[in-house]
């Protein structure tokens, strides 16, 4: 094993697959010589050239639709949308076209594309560059939705997304780009199948179901509780669609106490779906307390660093929520 960053892991996944399959093309704003707004694609333009690493105009709608059209005609495009907030500009092509073209054309089309985009707050980029909009895309049948929390997961899940024959929205966490973690050597190729949650920490007293940046934060809370003799299980959902319901349900049955944590605004957030998955199942009869949700506050992400830090779940808030369950 070696240690690389989350951004490097994503770069490796793309580059390695592009070397194997020349039908993979990569398009987005400033992904070429500039290397991407977060430096994720550094070196790719130099390696693959202008034919396969395409700097686009600032036109999120057509970039997304162009990828969908290319995917329907034999290519396997990757699109980078510079900030996940800008999927709002691409939504028509993503939700009405890419997601539905297989179903609405009676199975004639396949749309094997990956839309990569960084989400989340914490960079002082304020209201329009910090949102966590995963619930928007989870609500559209035909899309798959992935949010990795470690370099290992990022690489393996991105490879699986690139090999998938459906449109996959791959939401990266901008605050994790520089985080490091262990991944196998380059020659030890691996993928992580979509639809498999990962138990990042096993425990028997409380289950925290989470994803993305909140995984690490939840693990830190779990370690602190361990010293009190409270054993927390942390489940990283990893793939929001398709969801590994079984993993959540089994854990809920084991611990009887569940907290759902995510950074996105709580109202209408995917946490509602995660909580319902448990409550709707026979795990309900094993619960010792109501399933608790902890999402971001229902406000836009503010600029001031003190305010910004407080609108998403903090260690303190997660800790307090766990205590309510005990």
């Amino acid at each position, binding site marked *: 094993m070696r240690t690389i960053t989350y951004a490097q892991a994503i770069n490796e996944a793309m580059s390695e697959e592009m070397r194997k399959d020349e039908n993979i*093309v990569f398009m987005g704003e400033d992904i070429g010589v500039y290397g991407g707004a977060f430096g994720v694609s550094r070196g790719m333009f130099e390696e693959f050239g202008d*034919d396969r690493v*395409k700097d*686009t*105009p600032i*036109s999120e*709608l*057509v*970039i*997304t*639709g*162009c*990828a*969908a*059209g*290319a*995917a*329907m*005609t*034999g*290519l396997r*495009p990757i699109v980078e949308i510079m900030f996940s907030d800008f999927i709002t500009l691409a939504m*028509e*092509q993503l939700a*009405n*076209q890419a997601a539905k*073209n*297989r*179903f*609405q*054309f*009676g*199975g*004639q*089309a*396949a*749309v*094997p594309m990956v839309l990569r985009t960084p989400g989340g707050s914490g960079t002082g980029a304020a209201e329009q560059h910090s949102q966590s909009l995963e619930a928007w895309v989870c609500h559209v*049948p*035909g899309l*798959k939705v992935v949010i990795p929390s470690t370099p290992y997961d990022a690489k393996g899940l991105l490879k699986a997304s690139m090999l998938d*024959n*459906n449109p996959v929205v791959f939401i990266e966490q901008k605050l994790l780009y520089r985080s490091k973690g262990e991944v196998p050597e380059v020659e030890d190729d691996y993928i992580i199948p979509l639809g498999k949650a990962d138990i990042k920490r096993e425990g028997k007293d409380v289950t925290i179901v989470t994803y993305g940046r909140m995984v690490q934060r939840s693990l830190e809370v779990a370690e602190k509780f361990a010293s009190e003799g409270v054993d927390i299980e942390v489940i990283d959902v990893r793939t929001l669609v398709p969801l590994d319901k079984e993993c959540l349900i089994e854990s809920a049955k084991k611990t009887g106490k569940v907290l759902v944590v995510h950074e996105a605004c709580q109202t209408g957030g995917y946490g509602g779906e995660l909580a319902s998955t448990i409550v709707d199942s026979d795990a309900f009869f094993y619960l010792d307390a109501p399933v608790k949700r902890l999402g971001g506050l229902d406000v836009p992400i503010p600029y001031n660093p003190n305010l910004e830090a407080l609108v998403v779940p903090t260690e303190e808030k997660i800790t307090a929520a766990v205590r309510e369950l005990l």
Partner: protein
Amino acid sequence: MGLPKETHEELYTKMVQCREFEEKAAKLFIQGKVHGTAHFCIGEEATGIGVSSALEVEDYILQTHRGHNQGIGKNMDINRMMAEFLGKETGYCKGKGGCMHIADFSVGSLGANGVVGGGLPIATGAAFSQKYKKSDNITVCYFGDGASNEGAFHESLNLAAAWKLPVLFVCTNNLYGMSTSVKKSMAISDISVRASGYGMKGIALDGNDVVNIYEETKKAKKYVQKNGPMLMVLNTYRWMGHSKSDAQLYRSKEEVNEWKEKCPIKRHREFLIESGMFTAEQIKAIDKSAKQDIENAVAYAEASPEPKIEDIFDDVYAD
């Protein structure tokens, strides 16, 4: 040098089939046999049939919601179109799309679109594939005057021009976006001038002259293969309302009647007879045969099974 007789026959036959298809479809509505909606291109037949007929199987088209002519021009199967219209399992979309979403990838139709302007970005991607694979084929993107006011139009024409993608953008200007006249929705009367804003060639043609549209499409294809995208505007008129529920309070009967005088089918028929290429009897035989094709399509559709409830999750995702 005119077109060969067979080409004239093909164009005329397809236009009559399209007219019969839609008139029959309208009747099926009145009889309560159709559940959804449809958008008819009666009066506009020459546009899609002239353009699509000039293409090869390997050329792609992106159709609009008002695109029966575009599909028939590209040799789509009328039986499966009618079956889809009636929501049957044998339809192009297995009864799940309706006629707003008919597609036939085997003849190069990448699908009709229910979103105004929705096909424009997809067309750039199809053309990107063609260019990437060094194919000589092109992508034709149909859309209407209304779509030319969408952001998708701007982004798509700009990208296609910047990347020199082989797309022929075909704008069917039928003078109304649903009920709103182009006079109210834009400050220009010639939509083809918009091409210049993208460094693109733009031409405007009489949208009711099927022969000229066919010939100009052949030329446009050569131009696009060599130079990148082009905008072709076909000026025509929608005889029917926007969809089945349109009372047409926004225009006069006189205006509609004026355009009915310019019927593209009548015009081509008169040309074929006056030029001596076909006798009136031969034309009548074609008309009769086209009518029969549509009757057969209805019979096929009506005899086809309903989609099965247990198949509802099929095709949401590919394996």
